[in-house]
């Protein structure tokens, strides 16, 4: 070989060698997946750890490192981590947080790799942004009616009475309320962040009202339908509502002081864990005519866009959300709405009337609109509800104020 062409040849060989070596990653080096999640209480944490350990057993070379997040401040920790470029590989996000991160490019798009899964899972809407999917639904949670049958039996209504429309709901609450002795008919939420609006929106949506028009250009919260919904809710709250925080409403419900409340599956868990002796039934949220629409939120798993292990992370997420593991989680935590559709068909849910209500309600539920400015919209709605319910403001005026504020948000964004 002539010297002149030897050196370029050597360079090319070395270049090819380098490319070959770096292409597949070094074999045998363990991958550590950092996972931040919220399920930390002693009842459910072992299950999470077990699922992670099982994955490690079936996938030698992968280690899962768990970090616990507190429900109260976990969001801040996540935000700070992403903002400073130090986010974990996998993070559990609430359904109303996903858009904050997906719209700013912090999450890895996964739609290409989950085409087969989209049909098998509930709950995709909050994870979608710009025609791509950025999070995987894991555990959902809708809201249903809880009725204290002990109180129901004291009225002259049938002991299996479940209201199917607004008229019947009103009748039920009035009758229980008139039992007297400090007993209220309806549990009406006080001004509590991230909670009050979730109790009103079911009535709002059940009446086919919308916050924003379908083309996204106009705020239509103050339509006739919205007005009717708010008027109905206010009447219910004023005439037979006990106003208190969600926790205390549940305490009161369990103590037989409130007849009807709207709550999620955590109440079932509490009744089971604390062995509370209460006779209750669950029912679907009623609309003006049957059926109504409820609120749904949930926990999702997302991958950081800066992760070095995206492929492995997605593999682990699919493992976490497969039928068996979702069932295991739901059985341990008494969760009613796994995102995995296969899992919902298990007898664990079918054999329990309360869980079955939740499963049915999921098909009749809506997520809040997927809007990057949802935090502001939520605040506007909460202020509107507080004005109407607690500050004596007229319904129409408050609705118009809310409409104008939301419209301003929309207009500013579209500029």
């Amino acid at each position: 070989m002539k010297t002149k062409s030897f050196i370029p040849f050597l360079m090319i060989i070395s270049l090819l060698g380098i490319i070959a070596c770096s292409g597949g990653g070094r074999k045998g080096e363990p991958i550590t997946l950092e996972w931040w999640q919220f399920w930390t209480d002693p009842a459910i944490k072992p299950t999470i750890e077990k699922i992670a350990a099982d994955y490690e057993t079936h996938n030698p070379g992968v280690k899962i490192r768990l970090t616990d997040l507190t429900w109260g401040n976990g969001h801040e920790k996540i935000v700070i981590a992403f903002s400073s470029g130090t986010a974990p590989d996998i993070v559990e996000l609430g359904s109303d947080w996903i858009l904050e991160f997906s719209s700013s490019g912090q999450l890895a798009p996964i739609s290409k790799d989950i085409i087969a899964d989209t049909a098998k899972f509930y709950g995709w809407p909050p994870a979608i942004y710009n025609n791509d999917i950025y999070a995987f639904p894991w555990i959902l949670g809708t809201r249903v009616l809880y009725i204290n049958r002990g109180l129901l039996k004291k009225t002259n209504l049938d002991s299996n009475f479940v209201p199917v429309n607004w008229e019947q709901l009103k009748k039920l609450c009035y009758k229980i309320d008139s039992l007297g002795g400090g007993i209220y008919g309806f549990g009406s939420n006080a001004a509590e962040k991230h909670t009050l609006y979730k109790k009103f929106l079911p009535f709002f949506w059940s009446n086919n009202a919308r916050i924003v028009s379908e083309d996204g250009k106009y705020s239509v919260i103050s339509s006739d339908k919205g007005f009717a919904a708010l008027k109905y809710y206010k009447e219910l709250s004023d005439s037979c509502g006990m106003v208190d925080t969600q926790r205390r409403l549940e305490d009161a419900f369990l103590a037989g002081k409130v007849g009807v409340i709207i709550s999620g599956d955590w109440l079932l868990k509490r009744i089971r864990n604390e062995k509370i002796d209460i006779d209750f039934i669950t029912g679907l949220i009623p609309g003006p005519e049957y059926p109504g629409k409820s609120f749904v939120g949930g926990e999702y798993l997302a991958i950081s866009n800066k992760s070095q292990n995206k492929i492995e992370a997605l593999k682990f997420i699919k493992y976490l959300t497969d039928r068996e593991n979702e069932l295991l989680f739901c059985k341990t935590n008494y969760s009613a709405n796994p995102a995995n559709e296969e899992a919902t068909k298990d007898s664990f849910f079918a054999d329990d009337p309360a869980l079955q209500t939740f499963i049915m309600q999921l098909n009749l539920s809506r997520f809040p609109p997927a809007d990057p400015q949802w935090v502001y919209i939520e605040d506007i709605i909460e202020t509107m509800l507080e004005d109407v319910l607690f500050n004596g403001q007229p319904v129409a005026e408050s609705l118009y104020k809310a409409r104008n504020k939301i419209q301003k948000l929309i207009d500013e964004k579209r500029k």
Partner: protein
Amino acid sequence: MRVRQTAGVLLASPWILTFLAFWLFPLIYSLFLSLTDYRLLQPTYSWVGFQNFINLFSDTIFLNSLKNTFIFVFGAIPVTTIISLIMALLLDKSFRGRTLFRSGFFMPSITSMVVIALIFTNLYSRGGYIFLLAQMAGFSPPGNGFLLSNKTALLSIMAMDVWMSVGYYMLLFLAGLKSIPIELYEAADVAGAGRWRKFYSITLPLLKPVTLFIIVINTIKSFQVFIEIFVMTQGKYNSSSAVYFIYELGLNRFEFGYASAAAYLLFMIIAIFSFIQFKLMKQG
């Protein structure tokens, strides 16, 4: 008497180093951010100069939270100071069981603020003990509980704060009382001065440094009240504070530049306040 400069710098070096290592960057970074429209998670942002500060002056939510903070400061501090002084005076002289009372009064101060806030949330609610007590005493508390009413939410949190902190300030007053020379009292006895005279002419004046310290520290703490509101009301029912506003704005709405401006504005207010307090106390 001249003191060598180097000795001073050496002695102050722990702070100098700590400040340079950990606090200089955050302070400058936040100051810088306050002059931008930086939003958390967004990669780009632009300079806005003093626009954030100008906007704050017409931001009703911020002004409201600031107003609440002022109510907190002006309401809680005088009450706390007086009560803790009374407690200190009661426990000054030695008597049997004094340690028990002293420890008991101090206990609220050492318990976690979050847990105290949770406990009081329960006590203030409909059917809670404080609620029942108020009913028994003839007051008619708001039907849904003290924390679910625009009129009483902030005041209830203030009352809890006073309860929590009097023990700690009592301790400071006790230390101050003990450093007053007994000879002064003895001399006053010889001169025939009565209890009140001794209190006004000896105790109060000599307690000035401690009182000033207590008021300044309490002011700084009260201006930054946050955890109680975070746990008990999340700022609802007209109980938001300035720091809670900053927290919501910065970490929940991600308007971090605007929140940094609010933080600096708050800082300036606290500084002006403390400065005025210093001057007033030095003169009086």
